[in-house]
């Protein structure tokens, strides 16, 4: 089937809001090439479970496509239309199962050496959408905070090497009540601008006390869900004939309830995706924190994001694995600090991809110690301050 054959009936299996949205833009969807449309439907089918920022972006994208003249549509999607597909792909259920289709498409693009062309088409498309879509002004500048190094008594190795050149290094930070001060600032912003999923606290271990206005995701709190997921993987993988693709599809269909998650469905869907789609998020708390931050920024576009890393489990060398000793795994604070230092860099990169990057601020702090980097519109870059300062004041400087 080709997009020109689309009917409203085919969206009956979609959740209510997604169905309504698809049907209301049916005429436009029919004009899109098959190499593109399932990727859009893959987002659309999950519309009901998406964050407000994602819904707004999808609404805007569909409105833009619908407003295109035939010539504009042809021009915008020319590169996608030039991607060669096989008749096999036309026969797949790309309306009902767009995610499965894009998996197949990805493999096909690699094997037919069209991945580069597709990537270019997608990047150009994204740039075009950003150009034509109006971005609303943010109610307050975005703030990212990263707390790294929990459990490291002292560390003399280099830190913040990539971030330093973008901001000011502070070597005399007063660490007392540091985490509480940071959480208090995040909570104050959340209370002053109470947007749904607008202010986050991502915790790599057990969460510290936090204000309920913050959306909190915690590695420790998700332990039952992680265990349930790993058990399911183990059970399914052991079934005769279970290959990686079938297993992946099974895992992708898991619901929050099947992993024991109850309550906020949108947040729980997000958490399930972090655990099922993120490589390493089930095993290493540092990976969990980094990936969750990446996905929160990409999807929810929060105004405030505080991420605190905790020590991850130690990777056991081969000889130790062979010794067959069991017992609780020790943690590795220093290696976790190295992971988190890189994670902080990635968090800043991902924050800078969002609207308002020029006015956004960012602070990374070595927990319990006196080293931090602050980046903000008015802070000098690549410099060092020896002034004694507490974290609340440091945040004020970054946000100034």
């Amino acid at each position, binding site marked *: 089937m080709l997009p020109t054959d689309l009917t409203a009936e085919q969206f009956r299996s979609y959740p209510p809001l997604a169905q309504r949205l698809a049907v209301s833009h049916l005429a436009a969807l029919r004009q899109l090439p098959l190499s593109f449309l399932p990727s859009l439907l893959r987002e659309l089918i999950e519309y009901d479970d998406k964050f407000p920022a994602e819904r707004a972006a999808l609404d805007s994208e569909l409105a833009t496509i619908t407003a295109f003249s035939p010539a504009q549509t042809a021009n915008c999607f020319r590169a996608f239309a030039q991607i060669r597909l096989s008749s096999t792909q036309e026969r797949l259920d790309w309306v009902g199962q767009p995610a499965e289709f894009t998996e197949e498409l*990805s493999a096909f693009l690699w094997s037919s050496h069209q991945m580069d062309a597709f990537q270019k088409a997608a990047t150009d498309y*994204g740039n075009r959408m950003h150009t034509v879509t109006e971005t609303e002004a943010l109610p307050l500048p975005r703030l990212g905070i990263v707390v790294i190094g929990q459990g490291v008594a002292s560390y003399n190795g280099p830190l913040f090497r990539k971030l330093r050149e973008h901001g000011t290094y502070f070597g005399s930070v007063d660490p007392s009540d540091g985490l509480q001060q940071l959480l208090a600032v995040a909570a104050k912003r959340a209370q002053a601008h109470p947007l749904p999923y607008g202010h986050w606290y991502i915790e790599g271990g057990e969460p510290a006390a936090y204000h309920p206005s913050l959306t909190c995701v915690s590695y420790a709190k998700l332990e039952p869900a992680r265990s349930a997921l790993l058990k399911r993987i183990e059970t399914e993988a052991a079934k005769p004939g279970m290959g990686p693709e079938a297993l992946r599809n099974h895992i992708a269909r898991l619901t929050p309830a099947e992993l024991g998650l109850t309550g906020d469905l949108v947040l729980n869907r997000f958490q399930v995706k972090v655990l099922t789609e993120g490589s*390493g998020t089930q095993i290493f708390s540092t990976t969990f924190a980094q990936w969750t931050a990446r996905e929160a920024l990409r999807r929810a576009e929060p105004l405030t994001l505080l991420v605190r890393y905790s020590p991850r489990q130690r990777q056991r060398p081969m000889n130790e694995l062979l010794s067959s000793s069991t017992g609780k795994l020790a943690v590795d604070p220093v290696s976790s600090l190295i992971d988190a230092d890189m994670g902080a860099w990635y968090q800043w990169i991902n924050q800078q991809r969002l609207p308002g990057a020029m006015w956004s601020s960012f602070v990374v702090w070595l927990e319990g110690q006196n080293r931090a980097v602050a980046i903000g519109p008015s802070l000098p870059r690549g410099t060092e301050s020896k002034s004694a300062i507490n974290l609340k004041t440091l945040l004020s400087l970054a946000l100034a």
Partner: protein
Amino acid sequence: MINLRTLSEEKSLFGAELACHVGRSRRDFIRDAAGLALGSTLLSGSSLLHGQALLKKRKVIVVTFGGGARDQETFAPEGQEHIPYLLKELAPQSSFFTQMMNHGILGHYVANASLATGVYESLNNFSVVPPDSPTVFEYFRKDLNRPSSNTWVVAPSNGFNRIGESNSRLYGPGLGAGVILPKHLLQAALSGSKVEYGHLLRDNYETPLEVPRLGGNEVHLQQLDNILKLSVADFTAHARTVSSPDELSLYIAKQLMREESPSLLWLTLHDIDIAHSGAYSLYVDAIQRTDRLCADLWKAVQSDPEYSGNTTLFILPDFGRDADTDAGGNGFQHHRTGGAASRTTWMMALGAGVKQGVIYERPIQSIDLVPTIGAMMGFSPKLSQGQPIRELL
């Protein structure tokens, strides 16, 4: 998996701001530290071994990093602290190519298969299937009439057990290399144990959902005795002293050199692919270990009379990993975007017939390796799509 949402989220301001990070020429990135000369400034003239007798003794060892490594954790200035042996010991003895491009599929098995065939293979990276095009091992054995004992592959487990021999009707069955998968040997050696060692076989770090599946031409346990001349007890005792699967692979490679003296030996290391777990420290640890293992292998070559003086060693990652700034990826963790950082890597060649301390910045391709080895060893990889690297001939 492709995701239009992430691909399309690169904002214009951001790209310009960070472009300065990668502005440094690839030519500069190793010269300062390793004291190499730019190849184009040198007079032509090769120290290639000449004559049939020497050609017959010629040996080639290829070491690939089956977990791609980026410049910025290896030969770029900020990465050089991780590779002291490659940088200070091996690079000064080598011809170093700063731009090895991989235009194929960026999965480790398919990329290594492409390296071994000189053709960008299109096989499913996660399938246990042989390459479609003839491998370097088949060209070598058929053209030079060499026995199977003269070429070996030591590799991680996922799919690699079929890399020694292609589907090609002109070559194929009976003309390939023996493949040893050390972790599967270890599994077999431990099969009588009451303890469950299945976790040791985990060799695909890309997703927690992958499970190793094997079939085909792997070496069976008795070959520990017949080929490697190792008892199960000795092998398992040694395995208990190593810290990683790659250390075990090097042990097997050195054992093969001692017992079989293969003329064409292919070693794929894979520890670096732990990067897929998202733990940067583990990725860097693996690079440091790989650096040490490469130096260890080169020492073994120098101290073995069968290899010393007549062996050319190639060292290269199979490809890179995604750039930090690539919106479609997650930096070092994966190699999914097909961006420049993931497609561009380096290669060093050292030993017999290779100029020392020279750096070449012209782009070469992964598929050029097989025709280059063919020209060095005197066989003809007819179906390869690459070109011999003239600077090495």
